[in-house]
């Protein structure tokens, strides 16, 4: 097969920056859990986890530089996962 156009190469500087951000977010999420800020900390912790996974997918996994096909497939997979979780909770919470 033909080789695709020159692939995007992530610079080491950018990778280091993402790494430092991920470490900072880890410190933040531990801090938030330690200073128990009520029920909001469950959603806060999950929001930080989503942010961290977004960074890993976008940069470490190169999704930011991939074509439409992979992006839409990822979106579809995440949407299906959200439907699984959401519909299960409709049943569990309002039974």
């Amino acid at each position, binding site marked *: 097969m033909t080789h695709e156009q020159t692939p995007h190469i992530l610079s080491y500087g950018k990778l280091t920056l993402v790494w430092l951000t991920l470490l900072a977010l880890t410190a933040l999420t531990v801090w938030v859990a330690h200073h128990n800020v009520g029920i909001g900390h469950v959603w806060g912790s*999950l929001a930080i986890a989503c942010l961290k996974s977004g960074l890993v997918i976008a940069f470490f996994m190169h999704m930011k530089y991939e074509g439409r096909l992979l992006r839409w497939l990822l979106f579809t997979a995440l949407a299906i996962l959200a439907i699984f*979780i959401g519909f299960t909770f409709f049943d569990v919470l309002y039974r």
Partner: protein
Amino acid sequence: MSRHRDDTGAKLGMWLFLFTELFLFGGLFLLYAVYLSRYPREFAAAGREMHVVFGTANTAILITSSMLAATAVSAIQRDERRRVLWSLGGTVLCAAIFLFNKYLEWSAEISHGFYPNSPRLAAGPPGESVFFSLYYLTVGLHGLHVLIGGTLLIWVAVRVRRGVVHSGDYVLLENGALYWHLVDLIWIFIFPLYYLIL
């Protein structure tokens, strides 16, 4: 020798496989969420037995290993073979430290009487034993992925060393790194769910 090659297809296949992994762990997280809503007090009591220090250290270790795996991909694109090998070596070292921590952590928990069907859990409320069953299943399955991912990356590193994987043909390294990032991704959710929010 000309063999058929389709890097885009190979990467697409890897992503499709990663989606199935996402659903596998997603199902376990869903079980966790449902049981948390059913046994909030028991989960909170069991969650206090978790070692946050181990969890935090392992989070930092996996994030670092993920960064090193991404560095290996950037390095092979620039044809810097030595840096590829050092990065992959670092990733595998992180995987080993992670598993060693897991061994220490599980040893401590098991010695405190927390393991599936232990007398302590059998005597306690049902919610606590559900928590520990899910914990050992989810984290154990994740640990198995760490073991597989580490082995995979060693195999890729050997092929980089032999020159089979090089700057003109590196989809194997890319896919190995993608698998490793998934392992990191799953842990990013295990960490708050089991160690922090309870």
